[in-house]
C-alpha cells in the first residue's frame, strides 16, 4: 500500500454502499461469494435450503461497497447487490 498515494480529494469521494439480495433456494453453498468478498460482508449460514446447502448470510451489511464481486462469481445466480442511493441513505440515517 505504501506505493499508492492518497487521493487528494479523498474527503470528497463517496464510497458506494450496497444492499444484498440472496435467493437462498438457488444457492448451492459453494462459498465463492464468502471467500472473495473484499469486505468480509458474508458468511455461510447454519441454515439449510431445501437442497441441503447452506446459503450465505450478511454479517456486516454496512461494510458492503456494492462491488458486485459476489454477484459475478456466483455460479448459481443466487446473490446480487443493489446500490443504495444517497437520498435513501440519508433518510435511513
Amino acid at each position, binding site marked *: 500500500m505504501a506505493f499508492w498515494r492518497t487521493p487528494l480529494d479523498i474527503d470528497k469521494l463517496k464510497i458506494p454502499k450496497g444492499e444484498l439480495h440472496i435467493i437462498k433456494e438457488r444457492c448451492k453453498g459453494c462459498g465463492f461469494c464468502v471467500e472473495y468478498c473484499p469486505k468480509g460482508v458474508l458468511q455461510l449460514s447454519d441454515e439449510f435450503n431445501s437442497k441441503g446447502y447452506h446459503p450465505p*448470510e450478511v454479517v456486516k451489511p454496512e461494510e458492503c461497497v456494492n462491488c458486485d464481486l459476489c*454477484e459475478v462469481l456466483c455460479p448459481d*445466480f443466487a446473490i446480487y447487490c443493489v446500490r443504495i442511493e444517497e437520498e435513501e441513505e440519508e433518510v435511513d440515517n
Partner: protein
Amino acid sequence: MSVETTKQVSDEHPMEHLLRMDRIPHIWCSTCGLGTTVRALAEALEQLEIDHDKVAVVSGIGCTGRVAGYLKLDSFHTTHGRAVPFAMGLHIARPDMKVIVFSGDGDLVSIGGNHFIHTARRNIDITVICVNNFIYAMTGGQVAPTTPIRARSKTTPYGNYETPFNIPLLAASSGAVYVARWTALHVRRMAMSFAEAISKRGFSLVEVIAPCSTLYARLNKLGTGLSLMKFYHDNSEIRHGADLNDIAIDYQSKIVVGKFLDVEKPTYLDALNHHNAGIFGDKYKPYGGGNGSD
C-alpha cells in the same frame, strides 16, 4: 436468522432476462465453475449493447454442452464435437448474427478437434468459448486431451502420461485472430475478453480454466471447486501477449492467463467476396446472407 437486508425468491437477479429461468436451477454441481462462466458471458452481452435477438449460442455435449440450454438466446444443443461446424453453417446462413460456440475441452479439441482447427484456418467469424476443466466430466471423469501430465482420472488411475493440448497455441497456429485465456476466478477480465471476442471479426477463442469439483478436484484430492479457485488466485499470472509456446499447463503449476493474440485477417466471407469480385467483376453480388428469403 436472515439479516434484514436479504430478500427472498421473488427477487429478480439482474441477469435473468438472459437466462431461461424456467430451467434454473441448472444441473451443475456445487462449486462447479460453469455457472460463473455463463454469468460472465451474460455480463459481456450486457456490456456490448448488441441486439440479443441477433445472438445465437451453440453447444456440443458434456457438462459445458448444457450451456446452450440455459441462455435465453436462440440456442442449439448439438452432437458431440460438432458444435463448431453446426455454428459455421448457421453463421454462413446468417452472417448478420453473432454466433457463439460454448463448449468443453473434450468436445472442442478431442472429438471436435478437426473442426476446431479447420474453422480457425478458414477464419470463420464465430466466437468459441472453451471451458477447460481438464477432464471428461459428464461421463464421470475420464482422461481428456487437456488433462495435465500426472493428473488422475478414472481412465488414468495411476496418473496421465499423455501430453495435453495447449489450446491457445492450437487455436493461434490454426489461424485464429483472437486468443485469450482466463480462469473462472478472473470474472471481469473474462467478461471483457468475451466482449472483445464477440466483437472481433474472425475466429476468436477464449479458453476458461474452470473447476470441476466433483471429478477433477475429487479424483486428484484437490479439495472443492473453491480450493481450485484459491489455487487459481495464487498461481495464475497475467501475461498479455505471452509467447504461446510458454503457456502449456502442467499439473498444479502456474497458469498463464491474458490476451495472447489480437490480429486482423480477412474472414472467410471477406476472402470469398474479395476473391469472387476479382474473378467475376460486376456480375458478382457480395454474399451477405439475409434471412434466407433471397
